[in-house]
């Protein structure tokens, strides 16, 4: 009965579009043209403006269309490489703001994919995910700055080349903290789990804020500054192929952009493979029905801890990268709102579905960094130009409100997310007219 139910509008349109594009050379021509046009308009219009924002989003939208279209996989990869590996970085030399936005989006993609392992795959609601991100960030911040001397007298910062090793350290410590959080919450479900993880996230933030005495570990509310950036071995080569002389900051912008891109690609690969393995299937089984999962011989404790650990390790890794990119971190960076923001990416995009989660992360990042501030800006300039907007109304104040409204609308009209997991697509629209399992069992 569920298979015959009409598909939701958006998905139907997608299917029709991709069906249209999949036939013959039409798809190839369309996608190439699309890439060409958006790239050119982007490169010809590098000023930071609403128009550029829109073109930038259309440009990124290409990746989604490519993903949903039935064209040769080699062609897909080629388009992706051209868009993300050539056009976007080159555009970045014209306007560094956008490459920074892209890097931020990439960081959130990796975080959302990690959280998706816990929430989407294993069905364990985690509201403290940012804690692992914080742990990774603080590890590198402490060890790469004189802060280490404040903590252990006489200790000196590690050479900045150790950054590459600390990416793995972040991964392992993040994973260890994930397991640590997992241990006390194993018996909890749903709301209780959410509350305890929320508490855990806050505890880590408060610790970061207060561990400047008796031993100064985190430097408290002042945060840690002058965090070391890794040496770039290939800076000479980059400068050689660069169309203009790049200064250090620009070089690092590229460096972090590509580093995040690589980590995101590796993350996508890892979570994709895990999902279709005995481990991923066990997680989904636990999410679907714990009792039935145990009856198949799945050890609940081990698999749940593994989900917490794997999910947290991505955040630990990204924390290290984030600290080096940002040069300065302080406790408010890792507040509850960030956890909730990452969770909203996962849910908005499509709980459990990897492409959906990527889309959600990019979308929410763009919303927060570009679209909403831009709307506020436009409203403000409209106000000063004499459009009758009440004096007390400050548009910047209403950004979060707009975001909240968007979330509410999404949850009402498309609760399964923009790109839901195929398995999940029907479920949420159906539970009204389908008898529950319990009542079906009771009549048997």
């Amino acid at each position: 009965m569920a298979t015959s139910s009409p598909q939701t509008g958006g998905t139907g349109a997608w299917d029709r579009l991709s069906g249209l594009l999949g036939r013959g050379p039409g798809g190839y021509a369309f996608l190439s043209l699309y890439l060409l046009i958006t790239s050119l308009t982007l490169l010809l219009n590098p000023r930071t403006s609403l128009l550029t924002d829109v073109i930038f989003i259309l440009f990124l939208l290409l990746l989604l269309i490519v993903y949903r279209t039935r064209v040769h996989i080699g062609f897909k990869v080629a388009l992706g490489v051209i868009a993300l590996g050539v056009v976007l970085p080159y555009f970045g030399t014209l306007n560094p703001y956008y490459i920074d936005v892209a890097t931020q989006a990439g960081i959130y993609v990796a975080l959302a994919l990690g959280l998706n392992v816990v929430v989407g795959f294993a069905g364990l609601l985690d509201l403290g995910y940012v804690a692992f991100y914080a742990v990774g960030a603080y590890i590198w911040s402490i060890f790469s700055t004189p802060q280490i001397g404040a903590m252990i007298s006489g200790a000196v910062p590690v050479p900045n080349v150790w950054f590459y090793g600390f990416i793995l350290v972040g991964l392992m410590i993040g994973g260890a903290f994930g397991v640590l959080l997992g241990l006390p919450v194993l018996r909890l479900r749903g709301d209780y789990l959410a509350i305890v993880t929320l508490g855990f996230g806050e505890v880590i933030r408060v610790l970061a804020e207060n561990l400047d005495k008796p031993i100064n570990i985190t430097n408290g509310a002042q945060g840690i500054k002058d965090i070391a950036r890794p040496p770039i071995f290939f800076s000479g080569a980059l400068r050689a192929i660069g169309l203009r002389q790049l200064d250090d900051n620009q070089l690092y912008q590229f460096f972090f952009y590509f580093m995040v891109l690589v980590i995101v690609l590796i993350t996508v690969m890892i979570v994709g493979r895990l999902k279709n393995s005995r481990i991923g299937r066990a997680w989904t089984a636990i999410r679907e029905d714990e009792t039935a999962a145990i009856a198949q011989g799945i050890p609940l404790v081990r698999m749940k801890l593994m989900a917490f650990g794997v999910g947290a390790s991505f955040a630990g890794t990204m924390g290290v990268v984030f600290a080096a990119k940002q040069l300065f971190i302080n406790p408010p960076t890792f507040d509850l709102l960030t956890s909730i923001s990452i969770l909203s990416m996962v849910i908005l995009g499509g709980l459990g579905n990897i492409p959906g989660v990527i889309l959600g992360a990019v979308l929410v990042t763009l919303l927060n960094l570009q679209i909403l501030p831009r709307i506020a800006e436009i409203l403000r300039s409209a106000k000063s130009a004499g459009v009758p907007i009440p004096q007390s109304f400050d548009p910047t104040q209403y950004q979060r409100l707009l975001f909240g409204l968007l979330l509410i609308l999404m949850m009402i009209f498309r609760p399964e997310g923009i790109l839901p997991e195929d398995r999940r697509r029907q479920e949420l629209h159906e539970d009204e007219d389908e008898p529950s399992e319990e009542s079906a069992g009771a009549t048997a």
Partner: protein
Amino acid sequence: MALLEATNITKIFGGLTAVNDVTLTIEQGSIVSVIGPNGAGKTTFFNILTGIYKPDKGDVIFDGKPIGGLRPDQIAALGMRRTFQNIRLFHNMTVLENVLVGMHTHLHAPIWNIIMRSPSLRREEGRARDRSRELLRFVSLDNKRDELAKNLPYGDQRRLEIARALAGDPKLILLDEPTAGMNPNETMDATNLIRRLRDQLGVTVVLIEHDMRLVMTISERISVLDYGTKIAEGDGQVIRSNPRVIEAYLGKGAAGMAGHPPA
């Protein structure tokens, strides 16, 4: 040889003795039925065997090993699998994935091999898929392997649950009302399937059933529970003519009608 020996099992919920001092021995290679009126404690007894409940008294020995202190997943890994009275499939997974989950204890690829997609992992996954499809053919569901479990008709769901249980290569399979809610045709198919479990796969079968015709045709031994107590045991003939069984099913005073099978 006894595959399973449960001795003096007692389980009390609050003030209610759901299972009362039940002793049951299951011979290797047999088909055994556990019957009894609603609320007699049959499902509770299964839950004790599979480790979901800890008994208040009594021991269970499975395949020569005491399993009293083991977790349900450990017991499942030893080769005791079950189906549930109110079907518990992984609804949003495909038919094939459900069976693959059932194979969990037979898949050992370490996480590193999964991330690297090592040849040994691909071989293991390939074997698992082949085996799962074999089992789906065994229960005639292979043509539906890519459907979501929740979209299957009722009878198919029951058979999928059996295929999932078989995926663990069990020595013993416990079926909790495998034909509940089925029409006579489906019940007949299910009866044949249960027989084939034993005859073709060599799995020992214990089933809880309310359909007396099925119970009588298929089982070599029958145990009857009533208010948690085992009130009779034997083959179909013995059970059919046991006055206590008739009384349990039809109420006091019905014992005089001995000879008529309780329906």
